[in-house]
Every structure is written in structure tokens, then in C-alpha cells.
């Protein structure tokens, strides 16, 4: 789709950092930190889906949670709908919660096994609205309709559902307060292929219906290609490349993005045959001790001397397509 007209900026993330302290030594002093998210910046426009991809442990979930202020962030600013939430105390944030919601990775783990579906979906209503009981019940049933759950299931417990159904419950809960912005943290990773499509379609339908804005976190590049309007690629706590979907998938610039895309297997033996794989060597370094210079320098097939000493700046290659790599910096 080339006809994206960037709407209003709904979410603005600037230099967001989330460091988890590491304690060690005789007195448990702070000896370092896990730099799970180390200075990321991007905008999300109203009504769009921003895909966030990257390998396991690169800080995607942390970023998602930090944006919703589920963590007390280390540094940086997050504005949602124009309101800076980066330093508000938790009680004040409570009022903001209805605008921003989250859908979680593990549909089993994200539902309290001791609560009925009705109560799970009704919880946000109970917390934030003054609806009476019957009203609330009606609303819950409406939500269940919206996500395609049979109303009869309202009195069941989560373990009585299949994975896809559970994820629907989670989505219904996120929708309850008519949010503008939803962070979907790998909502389909734990599901079977045949079920994944159901959930993705549902998310798309809901977006169209309610005008939602998604941050869609995933490591499944093909699914992100399907659902996202723009895609950001993370590596070791940083965003290495961000662009609209078509640009990113057809002309990735950053060596990591290139490698990542090339590694995705293709469910088509004929294409598969022709794929030129860039096989990365080694593993992702530990975020508590990232390499000097460019984070990717330890595995980069096109590494240069400068990469080992200097952090690459972010450059805008074409409008909306930015990458942080020395290959493109000043040359």
C-alpha cells in the first residue's frame, strides 16, 4: 500500500531507555545493567500498525512495556496522544490506562486461571467505569461478540478454551475501554499456524472497526509483513532500521535486516531454492555487555573498523526510511 497518508502522531517515543540493574559483590552493589532497551525513538501514527521485529532477547517486549509505562523507565520520553507519560507517577497513570492497552504473547499465561471469562473481560470496566452490574454484563457480551466468542462461554474458565479462543479473550479485554493504542506483544507466537491467521484477521477487522493503532511486536517477519504498515527492526536494544513495509521488505538497507529477511524460510520450494541466505555467525551478545561501537559489529558480514569504535548515527535514507549503520552514515 503506497497510499499511506501519515496521520496524526499518536505515540511519540524519544530516546527511550530501559536498563535493569545488575547487583553483585559482597554488598550487592550495582555493578552494571542489562541494557534491554537502549535509546529508541520512533513515532506511531494514528490508525496505523507499526511492526517491531527482532530476535529473541533484543528488547522488543521491554520496549512495548516501557512505552505503556509498565516499567519505570530509565530515560527518554513517551508521549501518547500528546500527553507525556514518561515520568508520571503510577497512580496518575491510572487515568491514562484506558487509552493504551496490551495484548500478550501467551494466551494461557495472560489470563488468570481462577477468573471466569466474564470477570476477566469485565475487570477493566470495573476499574475504570461506574457501570452497574447488568450494564457491565451487557458490555462484556458485546465485546465477546466483537471478537467472535460465543456468548454462552461467558461463565467458563480460561482453561476450557483453545489457544485461539483464549487470545480472543485477551483481545476483548484490551478492547473493553475503547483504547486508541494497543501494544500487541507477539500475540500469535504461541498459536498454531492455522489459528494464527484467525487472530491476525480479527486484529485487522477490529482495527478497521474501531480505528485502533497497533504496535505489533513479533519475530515472525512474514506475519509482520502481512499486518504492519511500517516496520522497525531491533537489535540488542536499539532500532537498526525503520521504514514502511514495502521499502523494508524489498530494499532492506541495514546488514542485519538483510540477514534477518534472508533467513526466513519460504513456504514455496521454488522460491526457497533461489534464496540467497546470509548466514550470520555466532550469537547475539549479552545486553548487559554490548559490544563497543555498533551493536551488530560482532556478527556483521560487512563490518568495518569504524563499526568497532563508533556508534553509528541514524540516517534517513529516503523519507520515512531510517537506518543506523556506518555504511550509510556520511558517505
Amino acid at each position, binding site marked *: 500500500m503506497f497510499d499511506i497518508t501519515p496521520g496524526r502522531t499518536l505515540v511519540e517515543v524519544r530516546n527511550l531507555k530501559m536498563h535493569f540493574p545488575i547487583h553483585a559483590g559482597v554488598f550487592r552493589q550495582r555493578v552494571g545493567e542489562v541494557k534491554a532497551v537502549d535509546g529508541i525513538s520512533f513515532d506511531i501514527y494514528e490508525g496505523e500498525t507499526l511492526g517491531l521485529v527482532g530476535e529473541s532477547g533484543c528488547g522488543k517486549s521491554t520496549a512495548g512495556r516501557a512505552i*505503556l509505562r509498565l516499567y519505570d523507565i530509565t530515560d527518554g520520553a513517551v508521549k501518547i496522544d500528546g500527553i507525556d507519560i514518561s515520568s508520571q507517577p503510577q497512580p496518575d497513570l491510572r487515568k491514562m490506562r484506558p487509552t493504551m492497552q496490551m495484548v500478550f504473547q501467551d494466551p494461557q*499465561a495472560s489470563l488468570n486461571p481462577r477468573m471466569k471469562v466474564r470477570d476477566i473481560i469485565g475487570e477493566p470496566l470495573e476499574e475504570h467505569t461506574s457501570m452497574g452490574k447488568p450494564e457491565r454484563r451487557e458490555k462484556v457480551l458485546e465485546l465477546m461478540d466483537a471478537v467472535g466468542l460465543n456468548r454462552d462461554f461467558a461463565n467458563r474458565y480460561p*482453561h476450557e478454551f483453545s489457544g485461539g479462543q483464549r487470545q480472543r479473550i485477551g483481545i476483548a479485554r484490551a478492547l473493553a475501554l475503547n483504547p486508541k493504542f494497543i501494544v500487541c506483544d507477539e500475540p500469535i507466537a504461541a498459536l498454531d499456524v492455522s489459528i494464527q491467521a484467525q487472530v491476525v484477521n480479527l486484529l485487522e477487522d477490529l482495527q478497521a472497526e474501531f480505528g485502533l493503532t497497533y504496535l505489533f511486536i513479533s519475530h515472525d517477519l512474514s506475519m509482520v509483513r502481512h499486518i504492519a504498515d511500517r516496520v522497525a527492526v531491533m537489535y540488542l536494544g536499539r532500532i537498526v532500521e525503520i521504514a514502511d513495509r514495502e521499502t523494508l521488505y524489498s530494499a532492506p538497507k541495514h546488514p542485519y535486516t538483510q540477514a534477518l529477511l534472508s533467513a526466513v524460510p519460504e513456504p514455496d520450494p521454488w522460491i526457497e531454492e533461489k534464496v540467497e541466505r546470509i548466514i550470520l555467525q555466532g550469537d547475539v551478545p549479552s545486553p548487559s555487555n554490548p559490544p563497543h561501537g555498533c551493536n551488530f559489529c560482532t556478527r556483521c558480514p560487512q563490518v568495518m573498523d569504524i563499526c568497532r569504535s563508533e556508534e553509528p548515527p541514524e540516517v534517513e535514507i529516503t523519507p520515512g526510511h531510517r537506518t543506523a549503520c556506518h555504511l550509510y552514515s556520511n558517505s
Partner: protein
Amino acid sequence: MTNPVDTPELPDGAIGVLATKPRNQWLDVWDQFKTHKGAMAGLIFFVFIVAAVYLGPFLWTLDPGYIDIRSRNQGPSWAHPFGADQLGRDILARMLAGGRVSISVGLTAMGLSLVVGTFIGVIAGYWKRLDGLLMRLTDLFLALPLLPLLLVIIMLFRDPLRAVLGLEAGIFTLIVFVIGITSWMQTARIVRGDVLALKEREYVLAARSIGTPSRRVVSRHILPNILSPIMVSATLGIATAIITESSLSFLGLGFPPDYPTWGRLLFDAKDMIQQYPERVVWPGLAISLTVLAVNYIGDGLRDALDPRIRGR
């Protein structure tokens, strides 16, 4: 895609999809529990004992303190089915009264230790800032040599408390308090561990992302989900409390001699084990079987609450 000739409706239950009958989780637990023979036997026995000691006195109305000097040291008879003791008091009535005390001590001490343990465990697990402090406190209590301290505390407060609360209530409160206050640490540790794990569960995160305040996160999402370890702790707590109470009585530091409990009855009778073995055997069996029953219940509960075993 070509349309098939016809698309018949699926007959009901042709292929099991998902059990459609909504089931309460506790019913599942109960179903699983029922398959554990030992636990069922234990439960039946425990219910029987509890019913006997609490309801028994309505049926067997003899006063456990009434002295019928003519029938002293008598063996079992219609008037005294379990015989009479050295003052001619009815042993059945004393067993019932003693059981009431022993089991009440077990239940309340367990309750107390559970409340304290859960409270401390939840606070320490959920609020990181208090964790260090509370865990130090727990370690401290764990490092206290309990039996000696128990003995000292009982010696210390027995009489002051008795003065305030009256004879029976005073000593009862003290013993319950002492047992409860010295046995909460395991529960606290288990609970803390579970809370730490639960806190990272996505549904807790979900609740926080909704904006549920901590208080309600704890009461709605954390507490119900640590119920299983707490319940297992509870059964074991009853068992240890009953044993501790009888040990205290055995060391002569529990309830006073004129206040029957199973431990006390056993202690009083142990010298006569050869002359009147039944007097030792009754309280001994009562303690052992009750504790056995409760332990079996705990074992069964542990199995029943273990989702790996329960299966869905």
C-alpha cells in the same frame, strides 16, 4: 474452490471438540482428590474426628471434670465406654474435650501462621522495597531455635496472659499464638516465591496495564492463585500444630494438668502404660491418626492441585 455436493450439518458429538460443560476448577480438584484413596480416607476420618469432638459432647454429656471417685481406674463399661481415670473422670468425655482443644489449637494455630505467612510472603514478594527487610525477618525467625524459645515464651507469658484472659482462654491464646508465630516462615517463603513468579505472569502484567491498583492485583490475581500451596501448607500446618501442642504438653509446658488435651492425657497416662494401656493408646492413637489423616489430606491436595497430574 469447487463447492462440494452438499455440506451436511455435523451431528452432535461426532467429533469431540471441547467439553462444552462449564466446570468449576475446584470441582476438577475435587474429582482428582477423590481418586486419591489415602486422601479420601484421611478426609473422612478427619471430618469424623472433628464432628466427634465438636458434636460429641452433645451426645455424651458427662462432664470431663466430674469426679466419680467410686469408678476410679475402671476399665471400659457402659457408664464409661473408655474407662475412667485415676480420679474416676470419664475418659471418653476427656478425650472429646481434649480433642476439642487439640484440634482447635491445630486449626487456629495453622490459621494464624497461614495469615502471617501469607501476609508477609505476599508483601515481600510483591513490593520489592520491603522484600529485603521482610526476608531478613523471616530468616531471623528461621534462625531462632524454636522449641527452646517456645518453652521460654510459654513460661514467660503463661501467667500474665491467664490473668488477662482467664484460665482457659489465656493459655489457649498463648499456645496458639506461640505455635502460630513460630511456624509461619515456611509459608512465607513459599508464598513469596510463588508471588515473585506470579508477578511476572502476563495476567498480572495485564491487570497492571489495565490500571488495577496493587491492592486489587494482589487480592484478585495473586491470592487466588497461590491458594494451592497455601492449602497444602495449611494441612501440614494443622498436623505440626497438633504435634507441637502435644509435645509441649509432654514436656509439661503446655496446657495445665486440669485442662485435658490429647497430649496432656497421653502425658498423664504414660506412666500407667502397662497397667492401663488403653489410657495411653486412646490419646496416642487419636493424635497419630488425626495427624496421619491430615497429612494424607495434604498429600492428596498436593496431587489434586498439581495441574501436571490433574490434566485438563
